[in-house]
């Protein structure tokens, strides 16, 4: 065990000091920061500096009253002139038969920044229409705003699922973070193994410890680096979001237990991919060979991302459920589903059990293949050979 930790420490420090690691840790945060600025602050500043829209109108029914930003014009000609001279941003014409048809004509100037003031006009017209009626004020208010929505989703059992507005973002974030962390740390592991095979330090290491100690040290070291990456992302990402106006959107979301599950799924998912990558690396003689061999696992790893829209649209669909039970896709799929709907406990248990069993098998398998394959230099491995190793 002592040597496992020495190897883990060595690999961890060697990895976190690389430019690639530092870059991949900082880059998503930079993107997030940019997004926050783009989505949060820019529209705010624009709306603050922009002058409120002035809307003109030509009223052929003679019922409308002017109000704050609504300016009355006698005829279309004057209104057009005002629009072209930028005195108003748009105007509309209310024809004499408006009450029967509901038709109005809206005039705008062309250009990139012009926008239809539909909702402002509707609110203005509604004010005017209701002013004439003798309904009581509360009823008038209700007509103006008939539905102040609060959406409640029910699960299959009819229980209420508490999800708030930005819930839909969570599965995307989880999928991205988890897939990236698992794939990058198992990728580092693979490169680390092949590099030691290429620079031929591996036999010297094996004269100091067993192949199992070496492999588990490497898995632990690179896994810790991956976990560090995830934690840095989550913590600083959380910090950025909570220090900005976005914080209010996240209120009421139960992050904590999703986070715990995310870490469990990260560890198990990483172990499975790490074991697979170790097999590939031990039997390859160059990094390029290894990357080719790892392709199939990379595909399986990102499959839930490719099917993201299906999973998000129908979290309980057959595809989503199948992916929940496939060891290589279960981590990401299950977490996305949890973020979207209430996943029955038994599905969670089955998913975790399948994953744990696969991890145990993979660790045994990779230890055997690693032990034999790691000292085969300059020899391309065939599937037949691998079965040979397993028998030894």
């Amino acid at each position, binding site marked *: 065990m*002592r*040597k496992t930790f*020495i*190897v883990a420490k*060595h690999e961890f420090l*060697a990895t976190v000091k690389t430019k690639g690691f530092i870059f991949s840790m900082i880059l998503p945060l930079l993107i997030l920061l940019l997004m926050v600025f783009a989505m949060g602050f820019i529209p705010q500043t624009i709306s603050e500096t922009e002058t409120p829209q002035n809307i003109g109108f030509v009223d052929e029914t003679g019922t409308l009253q002017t109000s704050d930003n609504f300016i009355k014009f006698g005829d279309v000609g004057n209104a057009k002139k005002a629009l072209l001279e930028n005195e108003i941003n748009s105007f509309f014409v209310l024809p004499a038969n408006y009450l029967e048809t509901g038709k109005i004509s809206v005039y705008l100037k062309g250009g990139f920044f012009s926008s239809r003031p539909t909702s402002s006009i509707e609110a203005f017209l509604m004010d005017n229409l209701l002013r004439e009626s003798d309904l009581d004020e509360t009823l008038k208010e209700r007509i103006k705003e008939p539905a102040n929505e609060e959406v409640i989703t029910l699960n299959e059992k009819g229980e209420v699922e508490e999800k708030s507005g930005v819930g839909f973002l969570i599965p995307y974030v989880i999928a991205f973070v988890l897939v990236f962390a698992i794939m990058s740390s198992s990728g580092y592991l693979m490169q680390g193994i092949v590099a030691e095979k*290429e*620079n*031929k*330090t591996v*036999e*010297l*290491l*094996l*004269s*100091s*410890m*067993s*192949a199992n*100690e070496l492999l588990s040290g490497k898995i632990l070291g690179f896994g810790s680096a991956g976990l560090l990456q995830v934690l840095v992302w989550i913590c600083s990402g959380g910090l950025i979001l909570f220090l900005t106006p976005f914080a209010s959107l996240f209120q009421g979301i139960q992050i904590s237990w999703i986070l715990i599950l995310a870490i469990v799924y990260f560890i198990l998912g990483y172990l499975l991919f790490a074991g697979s990558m170790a097999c590939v690396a031990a039997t390859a003689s160059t990094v390029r060979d290894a990357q080719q061999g790892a392709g199939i696992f990379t595909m399986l790893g990102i499959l839930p991302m490719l099917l993201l829209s299906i999973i998000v649209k129908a979290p309980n669909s057959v595809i989503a459920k199948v992916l929940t039970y496939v060891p290589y896709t279960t981590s990401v799929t299950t977490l996305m589903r949890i973020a979207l709907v209430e996943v029955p406990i038994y599905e969670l248990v089955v998913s975790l059990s399948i994953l744990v069993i696969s991890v145990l098998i993979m660790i045994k398998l990779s230890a055997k293949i690693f*032990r*034999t394959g790691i*000292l085969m*230099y300059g020899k391309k491995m065939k599937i037949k050979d691998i079965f*040979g190793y397993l028998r*030894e």
Partner: protein
Amino acid sequence: MGTKEKILDVKNLTKSFDAKIVLNDLSFDLEKGEIFGLLGPNGAGKTTMIRIILDIIRADHGEIKIFGEEFDESLKERIGYLPEERGLYQKITVLECLRYFAELKNVKKSEDKIDFWLDKVGLRDYKKKKIEGLSKGMQQKIQLVAAFIHNPELLILDEPFSGLDPINTKLAKDILLDLKREGKTIILSTHQMDQVERTCDRILMINRGKRVLYGSLDEIKSHYKESLVVEYEGDLRRVEGVKKIDDYGKYAELSLEEDTNQQEVLKRLIEIVGVRRFEMKAPSLNEIFIEVVENA
């Protein structure tokens, strides 16, 4: 010699990969304080045997005792190994690299020992330099240091002199002799027969996985007929009564046929070439090696 402590005792070792038998019922032992030569042509099974001793791969049959004990992972801390397939981490410094290897061998206060050994191989100034900046010969010396750093009782060195210039070869040889004087036991696997002849107490030669020579050099040589050494000028091709010529252009070792008289051969030689030296001597290990492998 029989009363000395056995450092390594190998009995009936057999190993095959698929259908190919790599080691075939191999037995030998190693006595404390000796330099033991491990010889054999390429692919004879030397590296496989060393890897089995270190439990890097497992034998099909056979029994190995190291320091009188069954193999255990902790024994690795008492063994130093310089593999034939060797290399170092290129992107880190000499100190970082050696410190890592030392830590794995459970060495306390490794920096003092690293300084001591770097001094000894003349690389103290390179301690903080990255390995990738070192020459091949320097890297080779760092690898030797990695094998010695934990003061092991048993050293297994696979081609330790390859890639070293004559000065560094002498340095490495002197270090080995110092270690021998300190009572360390050394297995020296090499193709440099002259080195083996000059430094090894006993040898084991394997060919196609089988033990073909085993024992002290004197014992082994006593089983072979003396050969004729000639230093000459001219063109030496075929001499009547000579079974085989190991010719170097100016120097040749001649194995005589059973009933050939040395004086007759000398007369014939003088007729063909200008003889500058003529001597009967025990056959060199090189000759024995070639003979054993060719006659196998």
